[in-house]
């Protein structure tokens, strides 16, 4: 393998892991509640903006990494309680449209608060600088993001398989009526799940902040990518989100190397191909 291929592999994986953390939140919400949240990318953006403010005020990236996702999670919780609750049981189009309305509000809202311009934050000192990999210097921070993906995956896996709360959520996801009958407070579970999903989006936002320019349209771009990830992996499937994210990351990275002309179309071709050939996604449940 040539050096560039290896570096692209790394790039793809790093981007994939960022996508994974965003998509896993999206897919948790969909898996449990059946809601496809259009505003998920905007939550990610809000996470990045909050990180910007927290870092400017306290100069601590690590504080931002803890605080911002919680704030975004609270925002998600409010969204669920105030807006989504009245819509359960109605056509899914309405949920899609409601969250689309939220996207509009949040995208313009950050402009009102933080202005229309671009902002940037530095990587924390501990993670700035580069290391030598395959004869190329590679930023440590990117490796950090690449490592964060598997860690998040592991924590979530433990949560959902080992903890009582995780099991309750899974029960609610399987069969709402059954969960009701078992005395599980399903509305509370939904709220908790929305908190978790938004928390993850916010966390991805913080992680992305030192990598990208922070601007009002960053959410729109990522939401489409996240949609593609969850559809490719299988809506509601955790391992699917991981696989989908890695695939999309690699497609983006290698697309530039091998087919720069149609690189932009590749994610959509991937999306359409999967929907047609395996509509439930690569690792989606049959049903």
């Amino acid at each position, binding site marked *: 393998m040539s050096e560039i291929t290896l*570096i692209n592999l790394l790039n*793809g994986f790093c981007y994939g892991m960022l996508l994974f953390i965003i998509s896993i939140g999206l897919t948790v919400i969909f898996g449990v509640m059946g809601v496809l949240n259009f505003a998920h990318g905007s939550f990610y953006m809000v996470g990045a903006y909050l990180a910007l403010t927290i870092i400017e005020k306290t100069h601590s990236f690590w504080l931002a990494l803890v605080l911002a996702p919680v704030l975004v999670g609270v925002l998600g919780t409010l969204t669920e309680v105030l807006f989504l609750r009245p819509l359960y049981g109605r056509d899914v189009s309405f949920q899609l449209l409601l969250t689309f309305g939220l996207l509009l509000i949040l995208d313009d809202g950050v402009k009102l608060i933080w202005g*229309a311009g671009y902002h940037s934050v530095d990587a924390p000192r501990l993670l700035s600088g580069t290391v030598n990999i395959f004869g190329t210097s590679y930023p440590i921070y990117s490796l950090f993001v690449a490592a964060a993906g598997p860690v998040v995956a592991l924590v979530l896996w433990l949560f959902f398989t080992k903890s009582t709360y995780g099991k309750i959520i899974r029960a609610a996801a399987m069969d709402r009526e059954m969960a009701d009958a078992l005395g599980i407070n399903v509305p509370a579970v939904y709220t908790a799940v929305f908190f978790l999903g938004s928390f993850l989006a916010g966390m991805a936002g913080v992680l992305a902040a030192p990598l990208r320019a922070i601007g009002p349209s960053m959410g729109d771009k990522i939401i489409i990518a996240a949609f593609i990830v969850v559809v490719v992996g299988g809506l509601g499937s955790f391992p699917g989100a991981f696989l989908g994210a890695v695939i999309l990351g690699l497609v983006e990275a290698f697309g530039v190397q091998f087919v720069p002309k149609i690189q932009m179309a590749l994610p959509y071709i991937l999306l359409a191909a999967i929907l047609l050939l395996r509509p439930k996604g690569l690792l989606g449940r049959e049903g």
Partner: protein
Amino acid sequence: MRKIIAIILSICFLGSVSFAKKDTIKIGAIYIFSGFAATYGQFAKQGLLLAVDEINKSGGILGKKLEVYFEDSHAKPDIALRAIRKLVFEKKVDFLVGFDSSGVAKSVVSYIKELKIPTIITHAATPDVTGKQCNKYVFRVSVNINQNVMAAAKIAAKTKAVKWTTIGPDYAFGHQSWEYFQKYLKQLNPKAQFMKTVAFPKVGTEDYTPYITSIMAANPDGVFISLWSGDLINFVKQARKMGFFDKGYTILMSLGAATEVLYALKDQMPTGIWVGTRYWFLANDSPVNRHFVEAYKKRYGVYPSYNAQNAYAAIYALKYAIEKAKSTDKEKVIKALEGLTFEAPAGKIYIRPGDHQAILNVTWGKTAYDPHYPIRILKPMVIFKGEEVTPPVSATGCKME
């Protein structure tokens, strides 16, 4: 209900009643005020308002006050067109200024001709609007791609770099910049080579790492970069992390010396790379420039960007032309603008009658740290005379009617 009817009726009659007061000159300004390049609009608006307030305070033009209406183009041609219609038909403006994106400028010039409204382009750099698409109503007071890139090629020719590649936005501007760069550099340095591996990421790309990787893997001597605004900021941040600037490449950023970029990046902007601009606030020690920079810094707290200067200069160009024509009559103002020479902060600007393109000095320089400034400045600075870097009218493809 009555209110709704009133609103509907008032919309029906929009523009049907002429509010034109005889004692004002109305100017419509179209810039990007939202999205990835919103800072451009912000700077332009600031520069423009500075000029307008100065002129109005000193009694206006021919005793008439200036009135400005701003519209957001969103960097999209169709929205810009709507803005033009709104300004011309509803606000009844006399002149238009603006346009950041080349794509926007190219798409609207023929409609401007149809509307017969004198327009001064202050930013968009595509050679076409003063080239093969030129027309009587369209002027430009700012540096175009030809001028900027010709200067870049002159710098490139003096470096040791032989193998060149590019990273630019994936639309006409990026592709044309690279095309001209190759053409001019080849003329100056026949030994120059242009690589097959080039990168044209889409405007508004988030993740530049794959592009940076592929350029670094190709191992060039020199990299010509025509990214701008948010894209350039994004690129520099990611490239810096990947050690792109430590490889010893000769790097030319054709729009790297835009102050909005420098402000956003501050000390993340590497030093010692060549950056170009369409105006640099330290390039010219004339009284006009000193006054402009001081007034601007005082009013807005930052140093003016090229877009601020260009908008400022456009308003003064209109002032001088109207005074020269002694009338606000559109045809007379056009006559006066053709061949106008005036002193702008950027220096002496001459508007060539043959294609309506401004001839002015072009500044390039190397980024450097200076404790007196919060941003990178240019040191050393290289200034090219307008005539040196502007192709003759015959080479532009312009056929003015």
